[in-house]
């Protein structure tokens, strides 16, 4: 008797395993459908005029020359949008953002006018023909200076706004208990640490095709965005359109990394343009626009103190100024204005912690939550892991040892942290030991000493992270009032093939493969027989999409649960087919069989055929074999990891080379280890970029100095080593599959490991105790001269 297990192989698992990706077929042939690949009949093109000034009054806008240019159909300004009620739009942070600037421009690159023309070249030509008169104003681009009494007021559009405070002070933890821990400590260190502004810069820029049909009132949108359902709801609200008449299709997306979460002014202009003109309008930004105006990441100015007693870390105090740019459009759950930053208590059994965050406006592009940050966990982990190293330096103990002594113990899970998190599971010491084993930690320290003797600067950096992903339970969190739940619909066809529709939105994460594997694992239907449908709001369930590593924890759970619902229905049908009771049946992958008589059973495809046939169904059960679920996660999931980085710093040029990177991740059960490893590789490369070369800076006047790939430097294959990966597995106790999510972990854990390594290379010989990112040759050299400078 053939069973599923005999037909499965390592290469072609039916369920979890290293299954090669189904979606590859079109991409390797160049047959993906990305936004710019879509051409609709009668389609016209938009281009955006942007402000050259960081802060200026707009005195006048003259569009007459542009309008007279052949091939130009329309030029839209704030005045035109005002009549449609679209000049301003709400943000995820309950602020407002100008769609097109009317009174003032508030950051360099801000949207000022939107041209619609017959083709892209013409649209761009027309930009040069729009005459805008500006009156420049002083700009503030330094978060620390934004609240100075003489700082220029940026948001004078907001009633009652008298300063540049974007979000009032938010606190977590226990101030009194923290004071006590510090009072009793035997070692205290203090650091000012900046996580500079950087940018997710996916290879495909942002864009949209808006296609409004005036005859039917239907608005069809093609747009690479990470949360299509949420966007649909927003557009219905903002544009006053009926939600059921809006359809958003995402097709293939060339990378997201959080950059494709927000609603951008270009989208609203394309929609407005199409509604007014009645033809499809395509708008795609260029790379400069992407870097200068879309959702950046980080820009946290932090002051921290950490203390220890009897060799163990006991307390942490953090004070943060968050730079949100000119409009507060950070994306995070409503009650969490600093996102999940308060997970800064880290992986340690602290006595107490106290966190304070306030946010300011500056004359810079809006955003802050992006780039695989897990809602500010990248900032939190960077801070705590840099502080642990700072403390280790002060205590003169090995940084890995200090961590081992201070970890939350495996017996302490589920563990409630001092700032209100309940970590689900973990064995931190085991994960750390595994990383040290793969790295050959002791040998590395010996090698370091030997090289130092020869004048070579080798550094070893450690970081350990716990992060929380898979937001989140309805009772605790929402985004814009929408629950962070995700749906799954599963239909098994009469032939036994299946389709599962999900609300997660892949931008390269391999959902067409991994979600098919979940169905395969639960039902025994081979993955090639499971179609995964996504990216179409008309044909997929509601959900909040893919970011914050939530696909596996939330959508993955939804698919597991819906598969089990189908399996339970199949059991009842099988009982009827086999003329027995449901409780007499047992399951092996792909088949229900009679417990006492294993030869007697029903394969899932036969059950499916039966469900659609005319044969009698069990009492009270409808025909067909399908189910629906909206999954409400009971908690976040908490992956962790131990990372070790080895760098060599050229003693004369100060250039840093990452020689080795060891990453041991614990993301619970792995559905497709090949895809998990790929995610980790990608995030580690991004971490190298952030630690060594990626940064968005401004001069005093607010001019953006990194507005192209000539100066926003992304690592190439020559900057990345062969990554050495390991794993430990502590399943998530509340997730149906025991899986935790991993997409952002490598970006969370790697920058501190790299910076810790650079400082480790320079501490003994040059006395360096801190250096902010990016650790470019010039900045490392300045640190070696005793003058480490902040990035701005």
């Amino acid at each position, binding site marked *: 008797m053939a069973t599923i297990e005999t037909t499965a192989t390592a290469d072609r698992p039916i369920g979890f395993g290293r299954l090669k990706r189904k979606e590859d077929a079109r991409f390797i042939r160049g047959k993906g459908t990305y936004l*710019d690949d879509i051409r609709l009949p009668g389609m016209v093109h938009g281009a955006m005029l942007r402000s050259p000034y960081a802060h200026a009054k707009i005195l006048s806008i003259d569009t007459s020359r542009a309008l007279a240019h052949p091939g130009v159909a329309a030029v839209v300004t704030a005045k035109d949008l005002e009549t449609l009620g679209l000049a301003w739009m709400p943000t995820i942070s309950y602020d407002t953002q100008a769609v097109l600037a009317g009174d003032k421009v508030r950051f360099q690159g801000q949207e000022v006018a939107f041209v619609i023309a017959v083709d892209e070249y013409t649209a761009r030509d027309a930009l040069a023909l729009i005459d805008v008169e500006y009156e420049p104003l002083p700009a503030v681009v330094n978060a620390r200076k934004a609240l100075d009494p003489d700082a220029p007021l940026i948001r004078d559009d907001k009633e009652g706004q008298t300063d540049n405070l974007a979000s009032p002070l938010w606190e977590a933890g226990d101030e009194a208990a923290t004071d006590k821990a510090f009072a009793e400590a035997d070692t205290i260190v203090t650091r000012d640490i900046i996580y500079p502004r950087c940018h997710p810069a996916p290879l495909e820029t942002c864009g949209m095709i808006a296609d409004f049909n005036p005859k039917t009132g239907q608005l069809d949108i093609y747009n690479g965005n990470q949360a299509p359902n949420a966007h649909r709801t927003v557009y219905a609200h903002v544009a006053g359109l009926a939600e059921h008449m809006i359809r958003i299709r995402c097709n293939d997306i060339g990378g997201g990394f959080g950059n494709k979460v927000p609603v951008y002014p270009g989208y609203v202009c394309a929609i407005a343009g199409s509604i007014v003109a009645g033809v499809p309008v395509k708008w795609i930004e260029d790379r400069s626009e992407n870097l200068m105006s879309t959702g950046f990441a980080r820009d946290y100015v932090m002051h921290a103190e950490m203390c220890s007693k009897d060799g163990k870390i006991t307390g942490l105090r953090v004070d943060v100024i968050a730079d949100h740019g000119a409009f507060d459009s950070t994306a995070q759950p409503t009650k969490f204005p600093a996102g999940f930053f308060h997970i800064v208590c880290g992986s340690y059994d602290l006595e107490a912690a106290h966190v304070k965050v306030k946010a300011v406006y500056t004359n810079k592009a809006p955003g802050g939550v992006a780039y695989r940050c897990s809602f500010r966990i990248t900032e939190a982990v960077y801070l705590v892991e840099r502080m642990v190293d700072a403390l280790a330096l002060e205590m003169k103990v090995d940084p890995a040892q200090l961590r081992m002594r201070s970890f939350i113990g495996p017996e302490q899970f589920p563990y409630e942290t001092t700032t209100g998190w309940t970590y689900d599971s973990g064995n931190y010491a085991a994960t750390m030991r595994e990383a040290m084993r793969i790295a050959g930690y002791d040998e590395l320290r010996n090698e370091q000493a030997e090289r130092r003797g020869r004048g070579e600067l080798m550094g070893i950096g450690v970081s350990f992270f716990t992060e929380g992903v898979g937001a989140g339970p309805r009772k605790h969190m929402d985004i814009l009032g929408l629950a962070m739940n995700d749906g799954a619909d599963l239909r098994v066809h009469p032939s036994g093939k299946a389709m599962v529709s999900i609300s997660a939105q892949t931008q390269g994460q391999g959902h067409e493969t991994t979600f098919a594997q979940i169905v395969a694992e639960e039902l025994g239907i081979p993955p090639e027989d499971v179609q995964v449908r996504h990216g179409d709001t008309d044909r997929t369930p509601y959900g909040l999409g893919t970011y914050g590593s939530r696909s596996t924890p939330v959508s993955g759970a939804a698919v597991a649960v819906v598969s089990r619902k189908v399996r339970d229905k199949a059991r009842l049908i099988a009982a009827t087919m086999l003329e027995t009771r449901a409780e007499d049946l047992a399951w092996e992958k792909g088949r229900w069989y009679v417990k006492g008589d294993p030869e007697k059973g029903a394969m899932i495809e036969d059950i499916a055929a039966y469900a659609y046939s005319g044969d009698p169904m069990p009492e009270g059960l409808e025909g067909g074999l399908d189910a629906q679920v909206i999954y409400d996660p009971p908690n976040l999931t908490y992956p962790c990891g131990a990372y070790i980085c080895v760098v060599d710093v050229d003693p004369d040029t100060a250039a840093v080379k990452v020689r080795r990177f060891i990453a041991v991740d614990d993301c619970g059960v792995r559905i497709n280890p090949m895809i998990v490893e*790929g*995610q980790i590789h*990608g995030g580690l490369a991004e971490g190298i970029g952030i630690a060594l070369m990626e940064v968005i800076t401004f001069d005093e006047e607010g001019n953006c100095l990194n507005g192209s*790939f000539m100066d926003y430097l992304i690592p190439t294959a020559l900057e990345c080593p062969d990554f050495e990966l390991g794993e430990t597995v502590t399943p998530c106790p509340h997730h149906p599959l025991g899986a935790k999510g991993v997409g952002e972990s490598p970006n969370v854990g790697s920058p501190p490991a790299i910076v810790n390594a650079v400082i480790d290379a320079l501490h003994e010989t040059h006395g360096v105790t801190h250096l902010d990112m990016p650790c470019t040759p010039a900045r490392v050299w300045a640190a070696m001269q005793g003058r480490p400078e902040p990035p701005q």
Partner: protein
Amino acid sequence: MEVTITINGEEVSRDVEPRQLLVHFIRDTPGLTGTHWGCDTSNCGACVVLMDGKPIKSCTTLAAMCVGHEIRTVESLEQNGRLDATQLGFHEKHGLHCGFCTPGMLMTARALLDHNPNPTEQDIRTAISGQICRCTGYQNIVSAIRWAAEHEAAMKQEA
């Protein structure tokens, strides 16, 4: 001006402005949207195609400059239903996530293997150093190209 370029062995003629970039000329040809673009400053390499067998950045080349030359794009790799070794390698080794940089990487890989059938890991990393991938961290792209080299060597042995 009338421009005729040989793309994937076929002549494509169109009336274009002199300023039309090769990447747009290619992408405006039906069925040839596999060649992508990702920046403004010739840094990202999403636009890489082959000109006379050598990788070039098609965003930094005028269509007019390619008259009289042979352009090959990703769509030319699969022949008579058979995938090229490079394409098989990227699939075998998970050398792609979002797929946006993939066509450019495949073309550079193809040209590399045509020039150097047994590249070292360093040769491969250097060959793709002008092209950015945000998703993979490059490691599996390197493995994929190594796989393709070994696969082609094995096929030659058998033949």
